[in-house]
């Protein structure tokens, strides 16, 4: 018990006690996410027992549906959180440092949420653990993606531990490995799609590259959203350093949204002149997927947040919260618009046969929606629990600064001075400044 108290003091945790003090409304919100997650996992398990092909909307030809889209959404956001936060605590961009703990925590949570979702898409998840190890296919992007994301999760957890321990050099090293593995994993996810040469909508180097930039955008958006929301929950987390960090992340996000707009324009324009792709592109421009594309992907995902983030000047937090909150929804559709349309054209379409004349239709089933909600609710639940139990991911409270420690003016974390060291020297040592 004493050890727990020590750790919670050392790491600045409030633990379960914080939940007891939380308002009833907050607890109800958490409870509803917990219930939703519970409902999701029950429905998902039901699907597993009766057989997914009875209850899922996916078919033989369109075999990746809502669940893969939701998985992609989660891991893109996770990688993005890692990329954006690494600007600060890996590469030393001082303005970005205060976001590190929350970003790394959410990165882990999003990854776990993604694994929750993919669990209900993979037909034999338990075999995966065995045969991924004893029968690896090194030419398979799927293998690399799974393996590297596993390693990524391990690095991020270790990094988070060192962040809590205030061991900056090791957390920086782990953050660097995590970033490298994360980028490798994430571009492999793009290549899972991009190397299927029977699918012209996906095939090519576009997706691995797009995924990385898109991840940065999602990460920036997620950091802005979770931090501004956290400031609503606990206004104490907002201070001058955090405000400066918000401004910096806001600028990066604006840049990355512009990049993705550029990517999207050229995807549409080049697709229109290609016979293979134009069917799909036109269904997004003025067909079945037009609402998805224009309303969600373009308007909610890019144009509106770009406008609002510029208007907010990086310090109008309610505006940032709304912009990025809606943008998260838009980004979800962005992922959906990559996964589903890529499979809409039958492989026999070019043969001109009757069976492959029309685009393949897909509507998510109840089971798929619930299984996706399972992962997303786990993320929301963990976020709200984390904000309370982990004390808003902040350490700079005087009452919890232990003996011999002080609050670093650079990163806001607690540093410990060695014997005969000044604060200045300790900061230089912690941040490897010589």
């Amino acid at each position, binding site marked *: 018990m004493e050890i727990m108290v020590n750790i919670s003091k050392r790491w600045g945790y409030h633990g379960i006690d914080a939940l007891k003090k939380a308002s009833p409304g907050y607890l109800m919100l958490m409870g509803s996410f917990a219930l939703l997650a519970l409902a999701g996992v029950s429905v998902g398990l039901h699907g597993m027992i009766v*057989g*997914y*092909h009875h209850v899922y909307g996916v078919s*033989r*030809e369109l*075999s*990746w549906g809502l669940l893969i889209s939701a998985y992609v959404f989660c891991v893109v956001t996770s990688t993005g959180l890692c990329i954006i936060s690494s600007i600060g605590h890996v590469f030393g961009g001082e303005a970005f440092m205060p976001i590190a703990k929350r970003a790394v925590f959410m990165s882990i949570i999003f990854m776990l949420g993604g694994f929750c979702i993919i669990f209900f*898409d*993979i*037909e*034999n*998840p338990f*075999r*995966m653990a065995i*045969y*991924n190890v004893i*029968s*690896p*296919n090194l*030419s*398979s*992007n*799927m*293998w690399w993606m*799974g393996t590297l994301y596993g390693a990524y999760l391990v690095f991020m957890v270790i990094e988070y531990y060192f962040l809590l321990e205030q061991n900056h050099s090791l957390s920086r090293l782990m953050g660097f490995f995590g970033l490298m593995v994360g980028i490798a994993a994430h571009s492999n996810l793009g290549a*899972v799609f991009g*190397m*299927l*040469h*029977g*699918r012209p909508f996906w095939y090519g180097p576009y997706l691995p590259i797009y995924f990385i930039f898109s991840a940065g955008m999602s990460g920036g958006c997620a950091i802005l959203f979770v931090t501004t929301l956290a400031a609503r929950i606990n206004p104490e987390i907002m201070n001058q350093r955090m405000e400066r960090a918000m401004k910096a992340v806001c600028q990066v996000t604006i840049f990355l949204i512009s990049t993705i707009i550029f990517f999207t324009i050229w995807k549409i324009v080049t697709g229109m002149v290609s016979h293979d792709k134009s069917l799909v592109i036109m269904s997004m421009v003025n067909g079945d997927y037009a609402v998805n594309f224009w309303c969600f992907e373009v308007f909610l995902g890019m144009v509106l947040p770009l406008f609002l983030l510029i208007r907010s000047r990086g310090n109008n937090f309610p505006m940032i919260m709304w912009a990025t909150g809606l943008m998260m929804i838009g980004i979800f559709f962005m992922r959906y618009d990559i996964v589903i349309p890529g*499979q809409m054209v*039958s*492989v*026999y379409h*070019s*043969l*001109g*046969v*009757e*069976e*492959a004349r029309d685009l393949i239709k897909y509507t998510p089933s109840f089971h798929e929606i619930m299984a996706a909600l399972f992962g997303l609710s786990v993320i929301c639940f963990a976020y709200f629990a984390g904000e309370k139990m982990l004390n808003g991911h902040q350490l700079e409270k005087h009452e919890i600064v232990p003996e011999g420690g002080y609050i670093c003016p650079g990163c806001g974390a607690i540093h410990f001075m060695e014997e005969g060291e000044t604060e200045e020297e300790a900061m230089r040592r912690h941040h490897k400044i010589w």
Partner: protein
Amino acid sequence: MKFPNIDMNKLKNEGTESVTVKERRNFLKLGFAITGVYASGKILSLSSTYGVAHASEGSDFVEKYPYNPHYSMVIRQSLCIDCEKCVDACNKTNHVPEYGYRTRILTRKYEGQLDKKVEFIPVLCNHCNDAPCVRACPTKATYKDPVTGIVRMESKKCIGCKTCMLACPYDARYFSAERHAIDKCDFCWEERLSKGETQTGCSSACPTGARTFGNMTDPENIVFKLVHQLEETVWVLRPEDGTKPNVFYMKGNMESVDNILKGQKFKYSDPAKS
């Protein structure tokens, strides 16, 4: 820098006599390869390939077939009448569940043609030499059989990620809940070939001979003869994917096939004797 000023009109005609037969052949081959392959993209090859043996594309020669026996199927499209006996036989032989199929027959309709209004195209796993599904599988659950070249499944390794279903450009795969794995055509290896049979379920059930199954490394085998001839065009599906399929297609009407199988030689001028 100065360029030598050559007036082509004043050059002496060297004549064709000095061109060796070999050179002439090579030149013709080159021309055939270029026009044949790139004109339609479907023609196997117009140059003589007897004994050189080729994979799916005219430009993509290999020295010999990599497997022995190299199982292969030739589909004579004109003979298919869409009776679906092959599909039934396949389902029965391989215990295919009702929601899945290993092979199916596609229908292509025409308007304004004088002889036919409809054409049937049987499709199945192409057992590609360069199989995208095998590359995509994370656990080597699907693999090229090192002896026969059949793309097979080791069901216990299949994690059900469905990447192979999307990687396959021939829609040859589906997830079988009964097997807890992806299921696909294995040229009836498990149910027939490994038990000593020489024909697949579908080819033996076909009443018109639209599906012919055999060993491509045996020059006496029907599939070898059907593919290694110039009279009838042979093609593969989706050659642009470069998968080197082992299911070949030809129109294959009776007369010309009879000629091929009887070994009738066609009268070509032999440049060596001219």
